[in-house]
C-alpha cells in the first residue's frame, strides 16, 4: 500500500518544440507569408517587394560570386584598419583621461557630447584630407569608433579596484608596467564592450562612406544595385550584411567574456 501514498508524475506529453520557439516560428512564417502575398499581389511597383524565391536566388548568386568576396575583403580591411587605429587611440585617450582627475573633468565632456553626433557629416572633410580612395573610408571608421572606445576605457579606469593600483605602486611599477599589468587586465570587460560598440559604429561609418563615394566595397555594391534597380540583389546584400554585422557583434562579445558577465 506504500505505492498509494507515493506521488506519481503524470505523463504529460511533451511538445515537439517549446512554446517560445513555436511563437518564433509563427512570427517568421507570418512575415514570410505576408511578404510573399504582397510580392504576388502586384500592389507595389515591380520588384520593390520581390518574391522570396527571387531573394533566395539572389543570395545564392551573391554568395557564389568571387567579386562579392573581393569587395567584402576591401570593406573588412577598411573597417579592420579603422578599428585598430581608432580603437588604440581611443584606448590611449581613455586611459590618460581615466588616470587623471583633472584631465578627465576637463576633456571628458567634449568626448561625451561629441560622441553621439552624426559622424557621416565629417565625410566631406575626410575626402579633402585623405582623398576618395580607401583612406577616407578608414578615416570614417577611425572617428566613428574612437569615441565609444575612449569613453568605455575612461569609465573602465574609474572602476578599477584601488587596491590593485596600490599594489602596482608598492611594487614600484613604471607607467608601462602599470598599464600592461594592472590597468588593461582590470579593464578587460569595459574595453571589449567599447570595442563592440566601436565595431558597430565603424562598420556603419565605413559602409555609409562607401555608399556616398566609392568604386569598391560592400557599400558601393549596395548603391550600385540601387542605381541599377536590382532589388533582389539589394535585399540579398542587406540580409547577408545584417547577418554578418550581428554575428561579428556577438563574436566580439563572446570573445571578451561579456556573455559570462551577463549570466553570472
Amino acid at each position, binding site marked *: 500500500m506504500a505505492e498509494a501514498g507515493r506521488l506519481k508524475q503524470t505523463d504529460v506529453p511533451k511538445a515537439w518544440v517549446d512554446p517560445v520557439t513555436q511563437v518564433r516560428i509563427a512570427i517568421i512564417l507570418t512575415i514570410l507569408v505576408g511578404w510573399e502575398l504582397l510580392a504576388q499581389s502586384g500592389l507595389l511597383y515591380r520588384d520593390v517587394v520581390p518574391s522570396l524565391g527571387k531573394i533566395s536566388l539572389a543570395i545564392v548568386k551573391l554568395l557564389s560570386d568571387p567579386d562579392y568576396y573581393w569587395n567584402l575583403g576591401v570593406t573588412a580591411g577598411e573597417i579592420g584598419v579603422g578599428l585598430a587605429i581608432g580603437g588604440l587611440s581611443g584606448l590611449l585617450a581613455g586611459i590618460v583621461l581615466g588616470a*587623471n582627475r583633472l584631465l578627465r573633468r*576637463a576633456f571628458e565632456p567634449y568626448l561625451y557630447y561629441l560622441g553621439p553626433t552624426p559622424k557621416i557629416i565629417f565625410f566631406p572633410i575626410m575626402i579633402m584630407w585623405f582623398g576618395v580612395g580607401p583612406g577616407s573610408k578608414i578615416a570614417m571608421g577611425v572617428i566613428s569608433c574612437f569615441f565609444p572606445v575612449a569613453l568605455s576605457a575612461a569609465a573602465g579606469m574609474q572602476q578599477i579596484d584601488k587596491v590593485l593600483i596600490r599594489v602596482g605602486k608598492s611594487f614600484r611599477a613604471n607607467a608601462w608596467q602599470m598599464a600592461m599589468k594592472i590597468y588593461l587586465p582590470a579593464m578587460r570587460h569595459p574595453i571589449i564592450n567599447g570595442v563592440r560598440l566601436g565595431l558597430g559604429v565603424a562598420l556603419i561609418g565605413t559602409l555609409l562612406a562607401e555608399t556616398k563615394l566609392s568604386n569598391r566595397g560592400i557599400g558601393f555594391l549596395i548603391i550600385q544595385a540601387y542605381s541599377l534597380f536590382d532589388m533582389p540583389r539589394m535585399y540579398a546584400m542587406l540580409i547577408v550584411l545584417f547577418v554578418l554585422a550581428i554575428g561579428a557583434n556577438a563574436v566580439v562579445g563572446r570573445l571578451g567574456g561579456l556573455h559570462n558577465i551577463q549570466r553570472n
Partner: protein
Amino acid sequence: MTSAAALGRRPFVPALLGFGSLLIFILVVEILIRVGVINRYIVPMPSQIAMSFGRVISEEDIFGRFRLTFFEALSAGALIAVVGISIGILLYRVNLLRLACETWIAALASAPSVLMYPLFLVIFGRSALTIIMMGFVAGLPPVILKTLEGLSGTRRVLINVGRSFKLGPTQMFVKILFPAALPTIFVGLRLGLIFTLINVVGVEFLINFGGLGQLINDLAERYDLPGTYAAICFVILVSVFFFIITERVERWLRPVD
C-alpha cells in the same frame, strides 16, 4: 604646492583647462595655416570659418533648414514614442511574446539599419518620408527595450500597494506601473531620439535632401570649404544642445535615491 588632484576638485579649473586647450589648438591651427605648414586649400583658417558663419546663416537659410531637420526628427520621435511604448507595453503584458522577441529586438538595435536607406528610397521616394522612416527604424529598438525594462522593474512594494487598494488592471497600469516606469522609458526615448537625430542628419546628407545634412553636402560640392566647416560646426552645436536638453529632462524625471 597645489596638486593636479586638488586643482581637479575646483569647479572652474577643469572647464578653463578644457576650453583653454581648445582655444590654443584653434590658434595653433590658424598659425600653421598662415605659415603654410597646413595647406589652406584643404583646411581653411579658423578665422575664415568664424567669418563664414554669418554668410551661411543669411545666404543658406540655415534656420529654415534647421526647422526642416527639426520637423523630421520630431515626426520620427513622435512615431518612436507611440509605436515603441505600445510595443513595449504589449511585450510586458504577453510574456510569451516577450520571451520570443526580446533578443530579436536587442539584435536589431545593434544592426546597421541606416544602411537600408537605398531600400527606403525605392519604397518612399527621395522625400522627407524616407528620412522620417529611417529615423523611426533607428530609434525604435531602445524605446521598446527600455519601456519593457521600466515596466518589469517596478518595485514589488508599489504593486502590492495597488493590490491592497484593489485596483483593476487599467488602474494598476495608469496609477502604478506607468508612472514608476516613466524615468526608464524616458532614458529609452532619449537614446531613441539621439539615434533618430543622427540618422535624420546622416540620411539628409547621403540623399542630398532636406535640412542641415543637405546643406553640408551642398557646400562641400561647391567646394566652399569655410562654409562646409561652419555648417558642420553648426550641426555639432545643435546636436550638443539637443543632448544637453534631453539629459536635463532625464535627470529631472529620475527619482531621487
